[in-house]
Each structure stands twice: as C-alpha cells, then as structure tokens.
C-alpha cells in the first residue's frame, strides 16, 4: 500500500503540512519570514479598517470574524480529523446562550462569558464525541444532524423558558469600550473580536503543527494505521470533538455579544449548512481559509438577495456552483495551485527530473 501521495491529498481537498524546509536552511528562513510578514501585514490592515470604515461595515466585519472562528471549529473536526459534522450550529447556539444567560440573567461581564462558553461547549462536544466514535460518515452525519435539529427545539422548550427566554429569546447589552477609549462600541467589539480571533487562530495553528496535530491528521488519513502506530484514536477523536465545539462555542458567545440578541430559530441546521459551505469555500484543512469562508457566508447571501429578492436562492446556488467548479478544493486549494505555478521555474521539454 503506497502512502497517500500528494495527488491523493489534493483530491481529498485536504491540507498537507508543508514539507518543512530543512531547519536552518535559507529556504526555511525565507519561508517563515515571508509567512510572518504576510500575517503582520494582514493584522495591520485589520487594525486600521474600523478607523476608516462606517459603523455598519465594522459591524459586518466583526460578524465575518465570528463566522470565521466558528468555521475554524468545524475545520478542526472535519478538515483535520475527518469527522463529518452537521451539528455545529448547536455548539454555536450553546455558546451564544451561555453568554446571553450569564450576561442578562446573572450580570456577568462579557469577557468572562467567553471562557465559560468555551468550557461548556468543550464538555458537550467531548460527551458527544464519545458515542460518535462508533459512527462513520453518513451515520455520523445523521447523528450530528439530530443535534442541530434538537437545539432550537430544546431552546424553545417551555419548562426551560425562565432560563432561555423561550421563543422570544434574550437580549444582550452591548458592552462599552473599556478605559474610556476614544472609540465607539462597534469599534471596540471589532477589536475585541479581532484579539480573540488572533489568539484562537494562533492556538489552532500551533495545535496543527504539534505532535498532537499530526496524530489528529493521521487519524483522518488512515485510522487503522494510526491505531497500529499506537495513537489512542478514541482519545484524540473525542478531544478533537471537544476542542472543535469549544472554538465554535466561543464564536457563538462572541456572536451573541455582537448581535446583542439570541433567539432559538437562529441556531437551526441552516446555520450548520452555512458553516459547511464556508468551510468548503475557504478550503478544508486550511486555517486562513476560514476567513474567506466567513466572508463568503456573510456577504454572498446578501449580494444574492440584493440582485433579486425572489430568485435570491437561485443566484446563491449558481454562485456556489461556479465557485465549486472553478475552485473544487476551495480558495486555499486554488491559491496553492496558483502559487505553485508561479513559483515553479519552467523546464525544457522532455527532460526527466
């Protein structure tokens, strides 16, 4: 049995950890430096945007970051660990409601709700991951789908109304910028979200590059071989479920704060589908791709709606199809192909390698 070649990996639409240039070589230093410069440039731009943009755009970009974080959660589970989930809207919802309940019922400051939401979702995700060990592919899809369906129903459930606010949902107060900074609330939320995003994306990137990350990906690529190598697949899979839920849960918490409102029907399976679409468009297994996914999921439906209200669905579908046709491996896959073409020096015809 040959090891999964790059060709196979490209077909699976999955990111391969880039072959590490030998440590210390100039190529390695160049690669790393290029990477870091790019990230620094992006962060600087991100920092500057709200200072020049209108409030509504700032608000929308904050939402983009929230979605990107949620998609990253899904990516960790599906892209890096190969466990398909249609249920992440539930984790997002749990995170959102944790924050909403803590803030509106118990008056807890918003920043403390994030770790709380994360912890709650980690626990739920981990517990869900246990029975999920027995399910594969389609059947796992159904189980996670059940979770997505259950969530709005549970949230609307009468006896829990004192907690959840029932069908009407809960209102969340918008936090004020701290220390009397000369920015308005929307801008503050933007920066807050940006900070959380950077921390969590960095965390994910580190995880992926670590030994744990490699084990997680090994389980995705060849679970039997991974087990044979001594990797505790059960432990890693459930942990990944938990971490994935944590990420999406914190995104949900942020989402609640940004939108200032939670209601059961916003956390239905359509949200799960949006996450999936965002994941694929951005690029399965690509961390930066999640941002592209977030952008797509927030803006494209709006664009479709603005072209024609009645046929919004058709336009959205057509755009989706075009993107899939042109970039079957998502934006990240496409970018990889483009860079590979640009960087490869032309060879004379017929020469062997």
């Amino acid at each position: 049995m040959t090891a999964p070649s790059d060709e196979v990996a490209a077909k699976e639409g999955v990111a391969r950890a880039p072959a590490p240039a030998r440590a210390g070589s100039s190529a390695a230093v160049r690669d790393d430096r290029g990477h870091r410069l790019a990230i620094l440039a992006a962060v600087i731009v991100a920092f500057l945007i709200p200072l020049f943009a209108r409030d509504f755009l700032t608000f929308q970009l904050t939402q983009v970051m929230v979605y990107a974080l949620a998609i990253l959660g899904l990516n960790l589970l599906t892209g890096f660990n190969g466990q398909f989930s249609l249920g992440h809207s539930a984790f997002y919802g749990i995170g959102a409601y944790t924050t909403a309940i803590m803030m509106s019922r118990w008056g807890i400051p918003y920043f403390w709700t994030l770790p709380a939401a994360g912890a709650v979702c980690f626990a739920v995700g981990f517990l869900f991951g246990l029975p999920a060990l027995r399910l594969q592919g389609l059947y796992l899809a159904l189980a996670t789908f059940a979770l997505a369906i259950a969530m709005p129903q549970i949230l609307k459930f009468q006896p829990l109304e004192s907690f959840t606010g029932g069908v009407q949902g809960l209102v969340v107060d918008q936090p004020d910028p701290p220390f009397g900074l000369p920015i308005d609330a929307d801008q503050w939320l933007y920066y807050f979200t940006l900070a959380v995003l950077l921390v969590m994306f960095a965390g994910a990137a580190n995880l992926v590059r670590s030994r744990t990350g490699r084990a997680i990906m090994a389980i995705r690529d060849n679970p039997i071989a991974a087990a044979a190598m001594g990797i505790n697949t059960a432990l890693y899979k459930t942990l990944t479920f938990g971490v994935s839920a944590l990420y999406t849960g914190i995104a949900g918490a942020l989402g609640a704060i940004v939108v200032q409102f939670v209601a059961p029907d916003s956390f239905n399976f359509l949200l799960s589908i949006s996450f999936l679409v965002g994941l694929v468009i951005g690029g399965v297994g690509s961390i930066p791709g999640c941002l592209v996914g977030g952008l797509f999921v927030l803006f494209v439906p709006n664009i479709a709606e603005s072209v024609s209200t009645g046929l919004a669905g058709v336009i959205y579908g057509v755009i989706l199809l075009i993107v899939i046709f042109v970039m079957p491996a998502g934006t990240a896959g496409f970018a990889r192909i483009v860079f590979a073409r640009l960087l490869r020096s032309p060879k004379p015809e017929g020469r062997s390698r």
Partner: protein
Amino acid sequence: MELLLQQVLAGLSTGTIYACMALAVVMIYQAIDHLNFAQGEMAMFSTFIAWQLIQWGLPYWVAFAITVVVSFVAGVLIDRVLFRPIQNAPILSQIVAFIALFSILNSSAGQIWDFTIKSFPTPFGHTALFGSALIDTHEAGMIGVTLGMLGLLYLFFRRTRLGLAMRAAAANPESARLVGIRVGWMTALGWGMAAAIGAVAGMLIAPVVFLEPNMMLGVLLYGFAGAVLGGMTSPGGAVAGGFAVGVIENLAGTFIPYFGRELKLTIALILIVAVLMVRPSGIFGRQAVTRV
C-alpha cells in the same frame, strides 16, 4: 392497548410517506454512492410540474407519466451537466454542490409557483379503507405503489445485467471500467431513476402534506433517517426504516409525557441514533466485509 395500536397504525400511515422518500434516497445512494441532499427538492419540483400539467387540463395519469419521464431526463441531465465535471472534486465540495442545487430548486419553485399551499389530487380517493378509520384509500394506494416500486427495483438490481452493472459501477468504478462498463452512463442512469422515483414519491406525498415549495424538507429528513435506520445498502430496509420512523415519531408524540409533542422529531432522531450505536450500519444494512 387500544391507543397503542391506534397510534402504531397512524404511525404506519404517515410512515408510508417516509418509506417512499427513503426508497428514493437509498436508490440514488446505491447508484452514485453519495447522499443527494437535493432529492426532496427535485421531487417537489417534479410534483409542481405534474400539478401544472393538471392545471393545463391533462388527465392525472397522463400528467403522471409525463412527469416521471421528464424527471428521469432531468436527473440524467443534472448528473451529466452538474456533477460529472466535479466528480473528482473532494466529497465535501460535491456536498456543497448538492446544497447549491437545493437552493436553486427551492427558490425557483417559489418564484414560478409561489408559496401558497395548493392541493394535489390523488387517483386513489380519500375514502376510508374497508370502512376503517385508521387508513384511507390514498394511504393504501401509497403503500401499494411504494411496495410495487420496491419489488420492481429488487428485480432490476438483483436479476438483470444492467442492474448488476449499475451496482458494480457505484461500488467500484475503476474495476467496473476494467470489465467494460461505461461508468459515466451508469451513474447518469442511476440519477435518472432516482429522480423518477422521487417524482413518484412527491406525487404520492403531496395529497397528504399539500403542495408548496417547502413541503419536502421535513419529509426528506424523515426519509433520510428511515434510510439510515434501515441500512443504506438495503432498499427493503429503507422502506421498513421509513415505516419505523413514522411509528416512532407518533409513539413519541403520544406517549412520552410532557415534551413528547414538541420534541417529536428530536426524540425520533435520538432513538435512531441509539439504534445505530448498536448496529452501526442500520438494522438491515450489510457491513461491507473487507479484509484489511
């Protein structure tokens, strides 16, 4: 006891809808080795076409036949035009393509025929069967047609060369090519058949749930659940699964105190997942035996 029996029978009767849908779901799964999320929407669209033909004055069975044929052709076209070009793309990307198709069909149906509920005729009438209050002639007709389709499919797949070729093409396309099977056409044929079955399912279901663009959403979910419960490799299992889902849902709604009614769907799904824990390939599904 009386109530239990009543609810079981009521569940069986709603279950016929799910059984029909489950059959279509499994059909296409056997043909293309994938789940078609847009299955329900294709069925819905077909049903609207039938409705339109009837509005234009065509007799029921003529409209029925034309719709089935048109759906078959549409299924083949969707496969060739939409999914062939991306057949080598990653599975998740293909799933997104299905989602796109779903969105397109739902939105265009809404645009063409709007969202008001329409009634759809049934050739079987709605009179009570044998005077019993539990099942009417239409439901009996649904069961009959579903079982009939099941029988035909069984014969087709198990007893004909073409059926065998289709099974082979879906299970192992590369090997299928090595025995000379034109895999591309087998897949297209599978799509056509699934579209046709979906159309029949839609036309059977519409008289009960009434025709509107979102009618198939819940049904598809239940059908999917039924198919998974029964085992995706078994059309008979899928039909049984569909009936089971109907019964489970009804019993949950009636007998589980307090939250049964509101959480019917959730409970049904939880029960199904519980079953899958015990039998991960569904009740009748065959675990493909592979030597590592």
